[in-house]
Structure formats: structure tokens, C-alpha cells
């Protein structure tokens, strides 16, 4: 499966870069994400629970980052396994383009291979579901990052900062990343993004609409007469 797309995000590039590298942000944004662990500065593992029609599984994924060029681009590669539900492997290239001081365009190109039961569901489902999941991911991701400019502007005022934190506790992680700006913090965060792409795009699980799946479920289960 291949997917090339661009996603405008209403946040400065450095904020987006940091967001992509924040485990808390990614955990919140990846549909069905149950856990996310950094195992080294450029590696992480995650568990994502997904359901596509009759195929339901907990996916374990491993992601490795390479060619890090903060805050411009990196490559991610990895694989996820969902037991009898199937597996995915492949990679993605992610590039952040400045679109003025307060906006960024995130370009991504995913090239993934899907195997096992998921692949048997047919490419038309896989591609459309992947796009839908990408949409969900970015919707949440943009929501996480959108208040950032306001928050940054108000960091001078400790009271407002506290208020902002209360309003958006999940944002705290990337604030640290943003202001810490240290490479060893940024790198693991990038991994998260990798996982996000791998598990949302490549595995393209979860979130498929129930109505689209019902005929499939029927087709697959039709020979299991209940009696």
C-alpha cells in the first residue's frame, strides 16, 4: 500500500516537530493506542487495539527512526504484528514544511506491506480505511497543537500558563520538548510519530465504519450457520 499526502497544521514547525515526538501526544492521537514505550532514543514499541469488521486484534509494533533532520524530516520504518489478524511492515518519510511563522505543512509518504488476514480483506478497504485513520490521527493531532501559539504567547504570565495547562493537560509533554529542545528528547518523540504512521496508516485498523464492514462480516461469516 502506498499513500502520499500533505496535512496543513496550524502550528509553527518547531511545535509540530515536538508534537510528533511526544509520547503523550501520540498516545492520545493514535486511534486505539493502548501503550507506547520508548526502548531507545530511536526505537519504541506500542500496542494498538484495532477492529476491522470481523478482524479484531491487539497489534504490537516496533518502530525505528533514521535520517533524523530536526525539525525538517526523518524516516521511519518498522513492523506491527496482530497475531492471526495479520501484520504490517514498511516505512514512511515525513517532512515538515514551514508555511509562514504559525503554520506547517506535514508531508508524508507511506509505503507499507500488509500481510495476513487484513490483506485478504481487499485493497479497496485497506486504502480507504488508511485514509480515514490518517484523518482521525491528524484531527486529534491538530487539536493537540492548535492552542499552542496562544499558550506560547502567554507563557510570560505564570497564571495563564497554569490555566492553559489545566485546560489542555496533554499538551504539557510537547511544551517540555519544545522548550527543552534537546536532541535526546526530540528523537524519541519522532519515534512516536513513526508508530503513529505505521500503526494508523500501514495497519489501517480500527475506525472503519460499521456499515461498510457489515457486508464483509456477512460474507466472511455466512457459512457459519449458527445452529
Amino acid at each position, binding site marked *: 500500500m502506498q499513500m502520499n499526502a500533505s496535512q496543513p497544521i496550524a502550528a509553527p514547525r518547531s511545535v509540530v516537530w515536538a508534537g510528533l515526538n511526544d509520547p503523550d501526544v501520540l498516545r492520545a492521537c493514535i486511534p486505539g493506542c493502548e501503550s507506547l514505550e520508548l526502548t531507545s532514543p530511536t526505537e519504541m514499541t506500542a500496542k494498538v487495539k484495532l477492529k476491522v469488521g470481523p478482524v479484531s486484534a491487539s497489534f504490537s509494533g516496533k518502530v525505528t527512526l533514521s535520517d533524523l533532520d530536526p525539525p525538517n524530516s526523518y524516516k521511519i520504518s518498522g513492523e506491527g504484528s496482530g497475531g492471526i489478524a495479520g501484520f504490517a511492515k514498511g516505512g514512511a518519510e515525513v517532512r515538515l514544511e514551514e508555511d509562514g511563522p504559525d503554520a506547517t505543512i506535514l508531508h508524508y509518504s507511506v509505503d507499507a506491506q500488509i*500481510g495476513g488476514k487484513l490483506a485478504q480483506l*481487499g485493497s479497496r478497504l485497506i486504502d480507504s480505511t488508511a485514509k480515514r485513520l490518517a484523518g482521525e490521527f491528524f484531527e486529534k493531532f491538530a487539536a493537540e497543537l492548535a492552542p499552542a501559539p496562544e499558550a506560547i504567547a502567554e507563557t510570560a504570565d505564570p497564571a495563564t500558563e497554569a490555566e492553559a495547562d489545566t485546560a489542555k493537560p496533554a499538551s504539557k509533554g510537547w511544551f517540555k520538548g519544545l522548550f527543552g529542545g534537546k536532541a535526546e528528547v526530540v528523537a524519541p518523540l519522532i519515534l512516536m510519530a513513526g508508530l503513529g504512521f505505521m500503526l494508523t496508516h500501514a495497519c489501517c485498523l480500527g475506525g472503519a465504519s460499521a456499515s461498510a464492514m457489515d457486508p464483509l462480516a456477512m*460474507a466472511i461469516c455466512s457459512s457459519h450457520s449458527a445452529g
Partner: protein
Amino acid sequence: MNEMVITREQREARLEGMGCKRKRVEDVRFTQGRGNYVDDIKMPNMVHGDFVRSQYAHAKIVKIDASKAKALPGVIAVLTAEDLKPLGLHWMPTLAGDVQAVLADGKVCFQNQEIAFVVAENRYITDDAIQLIEVEYEELPVVVDPFQSMAPDAPVLRPDLDGKMTGAHGPRKHHNHIFEWTIGDQSATDLAFETADVTVKEMLSYHRTHPSPLETCQCLASFDKIKGELTVYGTFQAPHVIRTVASLLSKIPEHKIHVIAPDIGGGFGNKVGAYAGYICSIVATIVTGVPVKWVEDRMENLSTTSFARDYHMTTEIAATKDGKVTGLRVHVLADHGAFDACADPSKWPAGFMNIVTGSYDFPTAHLAVDGVYTNKAPGGVAYRCSFRVTEAAYCIERGMDILAQKLGMDPADLRLKNFIRREQFPYQSALGWEYDSGDYHTAMNKAMEAISYRALRAEQKAKQEAFRRGETREIMGIGVSFFTEIVGAGPSKNCDILGVAMFDSAEIRIHPTGSIIARMGSKSQGQGHETTWAQIIATELGIPADDIMIEEGNTDTAPYGLGTYGSRSTPVAGAAIAMAARKIKNKAQMIAAHLLEVSEYDLEWDIDGFRVKGNPERSKTMKEIAWASYNSPPPGLEPGLEAVNYYDPPNMTYPFGAYFCVMDIDVDTGVAKIRRFYALDDCGTRINPMIIEGQVHGGLTEAFAIAMGQEIKYDELGNVVGASFMDFFIPTAVETPHWETDHTVTPSPHHPIGAKGVGESPNVGGVPAFSNAVNDAFGFLGSTHIQMPHDAWRVWEAAKKLGVHA
């Protein structure tokens, strides 16, 4: 009193014998939901089995951890190859002389291959347990393209055959090679090509598809430890063969194995073979002591139990410049998947592909078939056709169209010019068959007239000109197909399965009151045997069909037979029925002579009994004879009236037909509309015209599906993509065109009732008719061949390639 006024016509009509459009008696229960299928059968303490299947197309199995599954409440057993090894059942022989892993033995060779068999109290628990079994794989390089299978550096797909350079059908050329099968006179054929005015060559792919019966493969096995007896209910097209195989593998004596095929919801070749599910269910019932049921789901059926086709046929025809064919040369690359599990008679690794000379008088021909392994599911069954006959028909019928195009000849005229003539029958084909009978010119001319062929060609020409002028975006195709089948396998001299000759059988017993029970070695999966077999008996014995009960599928009561596939039931079992009936009739004649106190030779048969020649008032009906046979037989004659016949056919039968498809294609959408489809079939004597029509409708609908989109597709990783009814094209009433049917009758000279078999003709002849229509539509734009399947996307792509979208 009433008897007096009944006319001969009424007596005949009352029988509902051969030629009668008798309504299908089995439909009384089927249409009311009262069929009895395997999954309807429940036994006390019955449990369920299901498979853990491979996610990979090619991988080593590093570890199987079933501990979590075994701990799940309700799970009774988990079988792996390790458990089957001590029994010698981790591998099983295939019908094609190869072996196949029952459960993966350290390695998987195709996606969804069986790895472990989980037995649990119910189907829900088996599904849960399957998810708890952890299989660790080590991926291996995958081969899905048969053209890459024999590359020097291709990965070894079958290490179990390592070093074995001779297979079941002779030498192997490569580690992924299965067999080479050749027939015909190569040097004479080569010479024909060297000296030909015109030659054509094209690689014609017949893609992989699947019989996809609505009821999947399933079984219920129950072992009685006290009696040492095994009972297996299953979806078996050949129940006796399954019993023999089960006995050979399990070492349980054959008389202690009760194989029963109840109602079957479609087979189409898918239910001929022996599958891992059967073996595992049998092992599981022996191990657990309770009945074990296994039922495939849809994806399992489409992706693991026998596929069909996957033949890649490089086809060459030599001809004179005025269109007389002089030679045929075909090389087939046959993709058999990971194990050679084709269901062909033993001596025929490429089935009857050598019917590829078709309906034409080829003076010489040569055929070579190379079978290869790939990381795809095993199989290669005859999906509603005799063994590889639909591939052969597609090959020659596309080939003839390609030749016609090159010669600038009309494809129907080219066929008429090259048909085997009526007076040439029995005809010896260049590739070794003796065609029993045929009248191709009559059939073709009747068909051409029925569809106003010349007028259609004129319309097509006008449309092509309009298209060129830019007045329309629609192009018109006329698909011509004239097929000759070879069915009714088969004579014991050249046909056997696992050493069992391919005879068939019938046992007919007349009760004292004149009703009948008859049992056969065939097994209906929807063909309507309960209706048609009774009609044969009704005509032969003069007992109304409604008084005849037909029973099939119970191997304890039915005589041994080889089952139903390859259109063999009417040619073989149908002949056995007639022969058994004639044995009874001979005895009945002796009894009638005794009752009428005349010599047997003074009697003649008259619809439903015997009458005295020249004195028709003196007669005995078969019902009267039946009573007498038990209660007052002639002195010295054994009482009773029954007979068994095992029929070894002297030859195959050769049904044929002329099919025409008229199609309009929108070049901008690729959508093809079938305007007309006309099918003329000659299946010899027609037993039940309504059932024939139903068979033709069904077979044409499958042919339409195959030609226009149905496909089992693999991606480069070896994933079988689209193995569900979301993607696998099954036409419904919405897509299915209207079918026009017609017939001629050329009886088989060697068959007792002259019948030839018809169930598969429409699939054999239909596919080339559709494909030729698509190709015919694009021919004037410079296209010589477009590969199947012709779904809208591929048709659109073909149009794009020809530059018509500019």
C-alpha cells in the same frame, strides 16, 4: 373402467420418463428449508474443530505456543504436526501423486495453510482459542508468479522433495518443477509450422479462480471406540473414494468406515479432494472419543480448498492462407500451487488438456504442459468442467479468433471451414482421442441463423465506422465459441483415481407393489439426480418416476462408485442405471412369458409392460410382473426383481455446442453490457429438458463470472487478496444477463441411452464466448488479445492502452 380409456400417450405421460420436463423432486425440500446438510447434523457430545492458519505465504515455523489456548476453558485439544507424526498423518497423499502437509511440518508454503487444529466445546471457543495460539515465523522469499518459479535462483519451495528429481509423472527439471507432460507428434507439428502460409502465436492466460460453492467444505467425524467404527458425514462429491482413502490412511478396515454425503449445496469440483479438515476431524474424534465437526468459513474456502485454472497457454496455430488449419502447438505453464493436489485421473497430470484441438480437423498437433510449484494454495480442480477441458476450450477458441483476425476472415466462417465433418465420426484427433459423434455444421448453422449472425456483423461494421467518426463511444463485440467437450471419465483402460478404475454403478430394486428404490455411486450436489435418474428408470422399466426413490451418498447402502464431477454422472452412472434396468427387464420378460403362457420371444415391450405380439390385448404391466416376481415366479427362477450394474464405459462422450455473445462496451467506463447470449447445446439424448436448461443457465452464469471478473488474486507477498464475496465476483440476478437456449440432438453411439452429459458445457463454452466478444470489440482498434478477467477496470485499461481515451 378408467384403465380402459387411457390412451398410449397418457400411459407414456404418466411415467414422466426421459424427455419429460419433470419438476425437480428434490426442490420440494430445498425450497422449504428442509434440506439436510452436514452442518444440520448434530450428534450427542459433538465438539468443533477449526484451524490456526498461516499469515505468511512462505515461512519457517520457529515455534508454536498453544499453552494459553489449552488453558482456555472449553478447549479440548490442540493438534499440530508433532501430534500427527506418530500416526504418520502429518502428511497425506494427494490425488495427483504428490504429498501435502496436513498440518504445517516446520514450514508453511501458502497463506492460510493449516498449522494447528483446535478442538473445543463450541465454535466460539475455537475462535477464541485460535487467537491465543502464538506462532513465531521466520519469513522466506515468496514465489507467486509461475513464470518466475523455475528461475535458476528461485527459492526452494518444497525442501521435502529435495534431491528427488523424479516425480509421480516422470522427471523434474528444476526444484520447483512438478512434471512435464507431452503428447502429439512434435516433428510433424514443427514441420507444419515451418511450411505454413500463416502462423499466429499468443500467450493466453486463464487466471486462477475458485468453484466457490455456497456451502463450504465441511465434515462431521465420529469414532465409536467400542465397535471400532468410524462414521464421517461430509460434503463429498466422491464419498466412496473418501471412504477408501480414509481406510488406507487410518488403517481402519473399509467395512468399518461409514462415509455419508447428505445434501450438498454445490460442489463444482471443490468437494472432490481430501482436505486437512477431514483428516484432522477424524484424528480428533479418535483422540477425544467424541464427534468432531469442522466447517470452513468463506475465506477459508476461497483461499485454501481447491482452486481452479491458473493455466498459461502459449498457443500457436499454423494455417494455409485461405484459412485451413494445418497444425497446433501449445505449451502450458500450469501453476499448481504449493502442493500438487489436482483432482485428475492418475495418468492425466494435465487432465484432458489434449482435447485442445477442439472441434477442428487438425492434421497434426503437439502439446506440452509444465506443472510448477508456487506459494499459492494447492488444487487445480475441474470447476464445472471435465479435467482441464475449459482451459483447452478457451485456448483453442481464442486461438481460432486470433487466427481469423490475422487472416482477415470472419471467425464463424473460419470455424465452418475447419470443423470435423459429420461423416468423419468416429474421429481420431491428432492428440489421441476418439470423438464418438458430432454434427458441428448443423449446430453452427442453426445458431448463426437464430441470432442473425450476418446482420450483427453488418451492424458492428456500421458501429465501428460511427466510432471512428466520433459519433459514439460504444463499441460492439460478437463472441463466437464452438466447443467440444470430453466428459464421462472414464474407461478403465486409461482412467483411475488412486488405482480405482473410474466405473460407476447402479442398484435397482423393485418392491412387490411395483415401486422402486434405486441407489447409485454418483452423488448429486444440485444436479437433480433424484429427478433425472428416476426418469431413466421410468422409461426403461415402465414404472412412473413418482414411484421411484433415488438414494445416493450413503456408502453403506450405495454400490461403489466414483462420484459426480467432470460431467461423468450421465455418461457413466446414467449408463449403469439403464444397464441395471435392462437386466431387470430381461427377467421381467421371463416372468411375463410365464404369466401369459407364451414364449419370451412372443412378447414385445410396450411403454409400461409386455404384450403378446399380434395380440396386444394380452399383456402384463410391470407392476403385475413385480408382484409375481416375488410371489409366483416361474419354477426354477429365483424370486425377486432387482439388479446391480457396474458400468465401465467403452469411451468418453463428446458434447458440443455453439455459443454467441453480443456485447456493447463503453470505452470510457470499461463497462460491458451483454446484449444477447445464445447457447445451443448438443448433449445427445435429453433426459429432462428443463433440468438441462437450468444447468445451462447456471453454467453460463458461472462462465460470465469467470470471464468478466471472478479471480483469486495474490499480491507480491503472497497474500491472497479479496478472498471474500466482497471482492470475489458472484453474479446475482442484477448482473446476470438473459440467456437464450437451444439444442440439436446427436446421440452418443456407445451410450445405452445416447446421452452425453451437459452440466459443464456452458462453463466450457461460455468463457471463450465472453472473452471473444470483448476481444472482438477491440480488434478493429488493433488489439490482438486482452487477458481475462474482463472486469470494467481492465477493459478500461485496455481501451486506454489502445489510445482511445486521447
